[in-house]
């Protein structure tokens, strides 16, 4: 049977669709809202803003997170900023330009209608956050300051020092706290969702584990919203927080929710290089540094001189050379691949030759050390703490690292998955960034989804589906609950010889080598052959100590790694099927003569939405064609 994915994009020109949608959408009357229960899994920017706004509207909300407080979600770590088409700088920005930049940045693999809507609501986000007390950077006149960010030629990024994510998340957390106080939201911290319950084809609840007592529980609702973030730690080392995982969306996948474009992963160009095998995570140095830092490597391979001793004419400022009009601000995917290329040529720097310089000496000469300190002081400090090196006196060493995942649950224009009643928002869905996300647009998307889009579109579902909640005695709840318990018991009973971390590292290395920055058929096939072997060994030889009825971090971790081990196969499978290069997905077989990504619009201008068919079967591909009505697809050029 051929299933046609209905993305429910409203008719009309791209600029009028969202207005038209809102004029025509169904509403739930205020007195009825409190009759609906909504589960929101996740309390990052997307989850916290959604839960708070739904609570304000009068719905009954239950919100879940695995950290000890909603304020600690991974969004807290975002440094650089958030985009909005305010045009406060009068530098030619507009909603259309933000829309166009995002579509182009995504290498023409995102849905036009969603992206335009995102650009439209971007301006409301800033207003909302200012009203909440987010202390954005300001100019002396008292107005909001802006900076430019990778992949854009205008200054449209709002920021709060190097802690924009923290301040935006605290704004959403405070709004959420107000609703918790008012009783519209019930918060479940240190609680992990382990499965989703589908009844008569609709999402009706979840199974959770209380991470303190170990108790597994069922929660029933009228709709379920997943805001569980991205899956970069499938590569083990990434810039993400240690707890980031794919469990929620992958469990939903196994219950029938399509997973879209899993192979679109973003490798961020400016991270601190790995220092040894003990490394547990990689630290991002905000992309904003590229505004004032110049990237270079020695011209000569194997040049081990101290960077300050290498004369100007023996340095290759390769981004400026290869992309004269964007220079050091070239988009992430392009900058990352360029770094890999020069290191592959033997010109990489640092202990293991996997690194390039990011040099501030020109900016310090031009603007003074004070100015640089004011702009990036905390980043320089963070760098020194980790490496023991002073970046005011010698260039930083940086290298690309897994950072963000554009793929995620397939959702329609209303942010609903193919399972009615299951909504997915924030980094967890696939929707707005195509094959590559531009800097400062994840925060924008998370808050757009949570504050302004989902709270509106979810009403349409309630207005047309009144099939109510089910008791947790329903056979589907009982079955899901038993499955979750059986899996926990299984993990605890293996008593093998290897630790969970060892498996995770092994997985990460395989994924980085074969499914990382540059992919090819042979490598992907190798990964696809190795993954089931690693998985089999995991289920036969992992050692998870302790019991399930208590606080047990090893058990939590084992469950997440078990899901990564299955999910990795889907990622590699998607990467193998997509025989083109686009954005963060670079297939070595498909490149232009000068090494740029070579898209194949004739065959691959679609969203790949995968349907689960069982453990031993290939997933089934459903294609959502991408139709460009407003923008003409071109080869991306940043030259």
């Amino acid at each position, binding site marked *: 049977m051929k299933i046609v994915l209905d993305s429910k994009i409203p008719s009309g020109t791209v600029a009028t669709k969202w207005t038209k949608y809102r004029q025509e959408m169904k509403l739930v009357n205020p007195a009825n809202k409190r009759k609906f229960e909504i589960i929101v899994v996740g309390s990052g920017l997307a989850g916290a803003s959604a839960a708070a706004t739904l609570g304000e509207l009068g719905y009954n909300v239950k919100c879940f997170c695995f950290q*000890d407080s909603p304020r600690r979600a991974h969004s807290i770590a975002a440094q650089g900023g958030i985009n909005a088409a305010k045009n406060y700088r009068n530098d030619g920005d507009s909603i259309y330009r933000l829309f166009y930049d995002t579509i182009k940045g995504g290498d023409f693999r995102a849905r036009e209608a969603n992206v335009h809507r995102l650009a439209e609501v971007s301006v409301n986000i800033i207003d*909302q956050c200012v009203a909440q*007390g987010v202390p954005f950077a300001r100019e002396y006149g008292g107005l909001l300051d802006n900076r430019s960010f990778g992949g854009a030629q205008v200054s449209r990024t709002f920021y709060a020092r190097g802690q924009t994510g923290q301040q935006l998340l605290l704004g959403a957390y405070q709004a959420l706290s107000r609703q918790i*106080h008012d009783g519209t939201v019930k918060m479940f911290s240190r609680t992990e969702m382990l499965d989703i319950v589908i009844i008569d084809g609709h999402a009706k609840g979840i199974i959770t584990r209380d991470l303190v007592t170990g108790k597994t529980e069922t929660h029933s609702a009228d709709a379920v919203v997943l805001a569980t973030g991205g899956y970069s730690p499938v590569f083990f080392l990434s810039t993400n927080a240690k707890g980031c995982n794919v469990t929620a969306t992958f469990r939903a996948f196994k219950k029938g929710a399509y997973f879209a474009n899993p192979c679109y992963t973003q490798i961020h160009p400016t991270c601190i290089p790995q220092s040894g095998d003990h490394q547990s995570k990689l*630290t991002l140095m905000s992309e904003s540094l590229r505004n004032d830092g110049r990237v270079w490597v020695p011209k000569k391979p194997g040049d081990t001189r101290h960077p300050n001793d290498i004369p100007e004419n023996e340095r290759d400022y390769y981004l400026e050379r290869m992309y004269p009009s964007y220079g050091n601000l070239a988009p992430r995917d392009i900058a990352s691949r360029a770094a890999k290329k020069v290191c592959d040529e033997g010109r990489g720097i640092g202990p293991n030759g996997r690194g390039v310089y990011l040099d501030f000496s020109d900016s310090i000469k031009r603007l003074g050390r004070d100015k640089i300190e004011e702009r990036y002081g905390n980043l320089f400090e963070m760098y020194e703490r980790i490496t023991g090196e002073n970046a005011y006196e010698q260039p930083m060493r940086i290298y690309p690292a897994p950072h963000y995942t554009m793929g995620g649950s397939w959702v329609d224009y209303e942010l609903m998955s193919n399972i009615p009643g299951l909504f997915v928002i924030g980094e967890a869905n696939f929707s707005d960034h195509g094959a590559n996300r531009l800097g400062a647009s994840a925060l924008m998307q998370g808050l757009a989804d949570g504050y302004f889009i989902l709270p509106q579109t979810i009403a349409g579902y309630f207005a047309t589906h009144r099939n109510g909640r089910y008791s947790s005695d329903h056979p589907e709840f009982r079955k899901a609950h038993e499955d979750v318990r059986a899996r926990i018991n299984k993990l605890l009973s293996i008593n093998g010889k290897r630790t969970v971390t060892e498996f995770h590292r092994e997985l990460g290395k395989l994924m980085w080598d074969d499914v990382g920055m540059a992919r090819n058929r042979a490598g992907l096939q190798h990964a696809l052959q190795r993954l089931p072997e690693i998985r089999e060994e995991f289920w036969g030889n992992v050692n998870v*100590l302790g019991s399930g009825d208590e606080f047990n971090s090893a058990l939590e971790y084992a469950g997440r790694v078990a899901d990564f081990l299955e999910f990795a196969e889907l990622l590699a499978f998607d990467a193998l099927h997509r025989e083109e290069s686009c954005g963060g997905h670079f297939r070595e077989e498909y490149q232009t003569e000068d090494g740029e990504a070579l898209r194949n619009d004739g065959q691959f201008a679609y969203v790949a939405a995968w349907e689960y068919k069982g453990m031993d079967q290939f997933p089934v591909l459903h294609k959502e064609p991408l139709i460009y009505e407003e923008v003409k697809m071109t080869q991306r050029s940043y030259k």
Partner: protein
Amino acid sequence: MNLTLRVWRQKNADTPGKFVEYRANNISPDMSFLEMLDVVNEELIKRGEEQIAFDHDCREGICGSCGLVINGRAHGPLAATTTCQLHMRTFKDGDTIAVEPWRARPFPVIKDLVVDRNAFDRIIQSGGYISVSTGGAPDGNAIPIPKDDADKAMDAAQCIGCGACVAACKNASAMLFVAAKVSHLSLLPQGKIEQDRRVLNMVTRMDEEGFGNCTNIGSCEAVCPKQITLDNIARMNRLYMEALFKGILS
């Protein structure tokens, strides 16, 4: 380097805990403190012993999850540094390091080095916000804010809610945490509108949670990884008194 660790092990809130000695061998100075604990944990699992439980997530000093008392000092020896940002190059080969959880009555131990800090969330719920709902906010530039005020608000807003201030205080006072939020919001025009109600509610809640009084010793400021200053406490005390008087007069 080779180290000796004395780590607080406690099965759960109801079981008494004790220090247990472990060896941490072949530790690289480039490791973070938590990576060093990862190494110890891997060895424990190999020996069939349960790993040491500790909270962590971002491992870059911003989420506020991690928090250990290291050699008697919250977050260890370095100023303005969270536990996850502390690197082993700060220690010497052969050192003995004591590792304990936050100790404060309002933060009961859950297991080993993990404590329950929900009291902080409940204080924020009592009023640590500006009461605006989504939608209808005026343009972001409608109210200019002097850069100096915005910067000061940001200084206070940087608090990561880790709880080191409470752990370091002999009275287990949460004044620095509460004052940081009260200051952040009161320094902005948007937050001034409900500042009386906010400060009264938050302080009441703080007392109800069992946090102690502030006796101006300043240990909190000394250990704060985000360098939140004592001026914030002075500002909060002033706002609190003003709010009380207004209440009495009206």
